[in-house]
C-alpha cells in the first residue's frame, strides 16, 4: 500500500538513522504538503504506539491558541513536549491548532536541535521554500536577471536626471530624493554635459552588451581598448578634442559647450574636457575590470547591472569631482567625505574616486618626469569668475591639464593593472597599497622633477 511507504520511511528516519524528524523536514524530504507531513507523523506515532507500547519515541507538539492575559487576548504559538501538551492546552482559552511538530528517539532537552534540523533542510531548499506551504502568494515570483537589470536602469536614469539638473542648477539643499520619475534624460548643462555625452554613449554600449549577454570579460576587453584609446587621445591636444567630439554623441557636446557657464573663461572648456574625458576613460576601465573580479551569486546579472550602473554613476561621480575641484575646499577632504548620491550605488565608487584622483595627479607628474618629448602638465591656475547665485566673484585654484605633447604608452599601460579594486573588506588593502605605490611613484617623480630642476639651475648658471 502506498500509505505504508511513508510509514516505513519515517520509521527508517527515526529509528535507523536516529534523526529528528520535523514536519518540515519530512515535507521536503518526501515532497508532500506540510499538512500531510504533519498527519503522517501523527499516524506513525499512533500506529507505533499501538504495536509496541514501549516504543522509544518522543514527540513534540505545536499548540496555538488564544490566551487571556492582563485582560486582553494574546495569540500564542508554542512548541511543547508531549508531557506538557495538556498543561499548555488547558492554559489557552481557545485552541486553534494542535499538531505534531517533530518525532525523535531521544528526549530533547531544549529546542536547539529542532531549529538545526529545520535550518539545514531549508538551506538546501532555499529556491523553493514555499513549495509545500499552505499559502501561495501570486506576487512572489522571483525576477529574472534581465528584468532586474531593466528595472534598475529605469530607476537609475529616471532618478538621476532630476538630481542631475538639480545638482547643476541649485546646490543640494534638502537632500530630498527625486520625486518625479522622468523617462527622458534632459541634456545636463555645462561641463557636466561632456560627461553625460561620453558616459551616455558608453552606457548605451554597455546596455547593449549585457542584453546580448556576452561574457563580462569580453565586454571588459572591448571597452578597455576604447578607453585606452581615449587616454591616448587626451594627450594629443586639439587632435584629441576633435576625436572625442566624433566619439561622443554628435552635436551634443557642442550644444553643451555653448551652454557652459558664460562666466567660466573660454580657456577652461578646452583644457578641462581633456581631463574630464580622461577621467571617464579611467573610470570605466577600472569599473569593467572590477566586474571581472567581482564574485556575486548572480554573476552575470550583477555584472551587467554594474556596468550600467557604473556609467551613469561614474558620470555623477565625475560631476561631483569636478564640482569639488572648482570649489574652495580642498580636494582630498571633500572627495572621501562626499556622500554617495544614491544609496543604491555599490560602495565601490567612493573608494574608486579618491584612489583615482590620487592616481591622476601623480600619474601626470610621472608622465612629465618621463622626460619625453611631449608632456602633459597639471598646472595650478587661478580662475576667477562671477558666481551668479551668490552674487560675488570667486577666485579658485584649479588644476588644469595643459597638454603639450603626448607620451603615453607606459602611462596607459601602467594605469589599468594598478587600478582593479574591490569593495570587499580583505581587498581594501589594495587601494591603500596602490596609493602607496602611487605615492611612491609620485615621490620618485617629484624627486626626479626636483633633480631635473636642480640640474637646470646649475646649468643656467
Amino acid at each position, binding site marked *: 500500500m502506498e*500509505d505504508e511507504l511513508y510509514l516505513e520511511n519515517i520509521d527508517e528516519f527515526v529509528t535507523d538513522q536516529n534523526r529528528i524528524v520535523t514536519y518540515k523536514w519530512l515535507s521536503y524530504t518526501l515532497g508532500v504538503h506540510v499538512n500531510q507531513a504533519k498527519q503522517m507523523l501523527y499516524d506513525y506515532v499512533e500506529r507505533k504506539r499501538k504495536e509496541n507500547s514501549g516504543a522509544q519515541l518522543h514527540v513534540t507538539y505545536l499548540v496555538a491558541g488564544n490566551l487571556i492575559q492582563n485582560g486582553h487576548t494574546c495569540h500564542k504559538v508554542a512548541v511543547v513536549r508531549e508531557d506538557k501538551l495538556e498543561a499548555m492546552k488547558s492554559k489557552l482559552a481557545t485552541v486553534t*491548532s494542535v499538531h505534531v511538530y517533530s518525532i525523535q528517539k531521544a528526549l530533547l532537552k531544549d529546542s536547539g536541535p529542532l*531549529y538545526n534540523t529545520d535550518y539545514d533542510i531549508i538551506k538546501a531548499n532555499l529556491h523553493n521554500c514555499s513549495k509545500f506551504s*499552505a499559502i501561495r502568494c501570486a506576487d512572489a515570483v522571483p525576477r529574472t536577471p534581465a528584468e532586474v537589470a531593466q528595472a534598475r536602469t529605469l530607476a537609475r536614469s529616471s532618478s538621476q536626471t532630476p538630481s542631475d539638473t538639480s545638482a547643476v542648477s541649485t546646490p543640494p539643499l534638502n537632500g530630498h530624493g527625486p520625486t518625479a520619475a522622468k523617462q527622458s534624460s534632459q541634456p545636463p548643462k555645462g561641463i557636466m554635459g561632456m560627461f553625460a555625452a561620453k558616459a551616455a554613449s558608453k552606457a548605451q554600449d554597455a546596455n547593449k552588451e549585457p542584453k546580448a549577454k556576452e561574457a563580462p570579460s569580453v565586454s571588459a576587453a572591448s571597452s578597455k581598448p576604447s578607453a585606452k584609446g581615449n587616454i591616448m587621445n587626451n594627450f594629443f591636444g586639439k587632435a584629441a578634442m576633435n576625436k572625442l567630439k566624433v566619439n561622443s554623441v554628435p552635436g551634443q557636446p557642442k550644444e553643451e559647450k555653448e551652454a557652459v557657464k558664460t562666466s567660466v573663461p573660454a580657456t577652461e572648456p578646452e583644457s578641462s574636457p581633456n581631463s574630464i574625458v580622461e577621467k571617464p576613460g579611467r573610470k570605466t576601465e577600472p569599473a569593467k575590470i572590477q566586474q571581472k573580479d567581482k564574485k556575486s551569486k548572480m554573476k552575470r546579472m550583477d555584472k551587467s547591472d554594474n556596468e550600467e550602473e557604473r556609467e551613469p554613476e561614474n558620470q555623477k561621480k565625475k560631476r561631483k569631482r569636478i564640482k569639488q575641484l572648482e570649489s574652495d575646499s580642498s580636494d582630498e577632504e571633500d572627495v572621501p567625505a562626499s556622500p554617495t548620491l544614491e544609496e543604491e550605488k555599490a560602495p565601490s565608487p567612493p573608494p574608486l574616486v579618491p584612489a583615482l584622483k590620487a592616481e591622476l595627479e601623480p600619474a601626470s607628474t610621472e608622465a612629465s618626469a618621463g622626460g619625453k618629448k611631449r608632456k602633459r602638465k597639471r598646472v595650478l591656475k587661478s580662475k576667477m569668475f562671477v558666481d551668479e547665485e551668490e552674487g560675488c566673484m570667486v577666485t579658485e585654484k584649479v588644476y588644469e591639464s595643459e597638454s603639450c605633447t603626448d607620451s603615453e604608452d607606459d602611462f596607459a599601460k601602467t594605469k589599468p593593472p594598478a587600478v582593479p579594486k574591490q569593495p570587499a573588506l580583505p581587498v581594501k588593502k589594495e587601494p591603500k597599497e596602490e596609493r602607496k605605490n602611487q605615492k611612491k611613484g609620485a615621490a620618485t617623480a617629484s624627486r626626479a622633477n626636483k633633480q631635473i630642476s636642480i640640474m637646470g639651475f646649475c646649468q643656467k648658471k
Partner: protein
Amino acid sequence: MFSAVTPLPGRTLLGPPSAEPPTFARTGSDFADRSQPFRLGERSFSRQYAHLYATRLLCMRPRLEQQARLRWGDGVLLRKLCQLQEINEEHNLVPQPSLAKYVDPSDELVLEDELQRIKLTGSIEASRLVTGAVLAVYGHEQEDGKFLVEEHCFAHLPPQLPWQGPSTDRFVLLASGLGLGSGSGESLLGTQLLVDAVTGQLGAEGQQSCAALISRVLLAGNLLSQSTQSRDSLHKAKYLTKKTQAASVEAVKMLDEILLQLCSSVPVDVMPGEFDPTNYTLPQQPLHRCMLPLSSAYPTLQLVTNPYQADMDGVRFLGTSGQNISDIFKYSSMDDYLEILEWTLLAGHISPTAPDTLGCYPFYNSDPFILTDCPHVYFCGNAPKFQSKLLTGEDGQRVLLVAVPAFSATQTACLVNLRDLSCQPISFSVFGAEDDSDMEVGQ
C-alpha cells in the same frame, strides 16, 4: 481577531493523512509607498542645523496659532514657539557615564524663537518636555524676565485622511528587533516559528487560512543585534584583525535567508534600525539590496526608510524603528513608550529631539518629521513590551498606537487588523532546558 477562527471540524491534523490538503491564496495587498519625504537623494552636510529649527518653527506656527486661538480666545498675542531645555550639569572632566535617563530636577525650560529666548516658569513641567518641541504658551512676563506660564498647548492631531480601509479582515504583521547575529540561539527558533506561521507552514488549517489573510509584513528595525556592532577592529592592531570578518556579515546572510522565506510568500517591508548597516542619522535610508542578494530577486521585498510611511490597503501607516521614542525616553521623565508615542503625535512631530540629541540630516527647506496628516496606524519598533491603544482625536481622528516589542527579547510580534484597527500580539515560545519557565508566557 486573528484567532477568532475556530478549527474546522472534521479536519484535524491529528489523524491519518487525508486527501490533498488545501492551499490558501495569500490575500492581495494594495500598497502605496508614501515615504518619499524620508528618502535623501544628494546630501550635503555643509549646512547648520539652525535651518531645520527655523523651518520647523515656520511650518508649525500656523497650526499652533489655530490651536491657541481655539483655546484661549482671539485676543491672544502669539509670540514664541520653539522650545529648548537646558540641563544643568556640573562641569566635570570625568567622562560622563551613560545613564538610562538624563533628567534632573534642576532642569530649566527655555522658550526660543527666531530672535530671542526666555525662561519659563509656572505650571509647566520641564521633565515632560524635550528640546525641539514646538508649543504655544499662555501667560505673562514677570519682572525678573521669566515668563510665567499658565497654560500651554501643542499642535495636536493634524487632520486625518479619509478612511479607505478594507471591509474584510486583513492583517499586517508588525515585528521588530529580530536581533540576528547575537550569537545566542534562543530566539532563532522563535524567529523560525514566526516565519513558518506567516508563510503558512505552521498550524492547522484554520490557522493557515488566517495566516493567508496577512497581507503584509513590516519589520521595524534592528534586524541585526547590537552585538554585531562591536568596534574591536578599530582598537586592535591591524595584524590581529586582518582576517576577521565583521559580525554583521554573517548576520546579514542569516537575514537574507529569513527574508527569502518570507518574501516567497508575503510582501515584506524592511526598515533599518539603530544597529543595522545603514546611515546613522535620521532619516535612515533603506538597506542596500546588494546585501540581500537572494531575497532582492523577489519583487515582494521592499527595502524602505526609517521613518516609514505607506498606505496599506487604504490604511495609512506611519512609524519608526524606535530611535525617536527611546531618545525622548532618555531625556524626559516619561517612562511609557506608548505614552511617549502619543505625546509625539500630539506635539505634531515625529522626533522633536532631532537634531539635538538624535542624529539628523541638516534639512534646509522642510522638516519631513512634522506630521502633516494624521496616520491611521502609528507605531514604533523595539519597545520593551507590547502596547497598543486606539486614540481618538478632537476632530474624530482614530489612530491606532502600537509599541512593537523587540522580538529577540519578547518573542512577540503584533498583528494589526486593518478592518477595525485592532491589534493583537502573537507570541512564540519554545521549550528550554528549564521546565518551569515554559509555563511563563513570553513577557
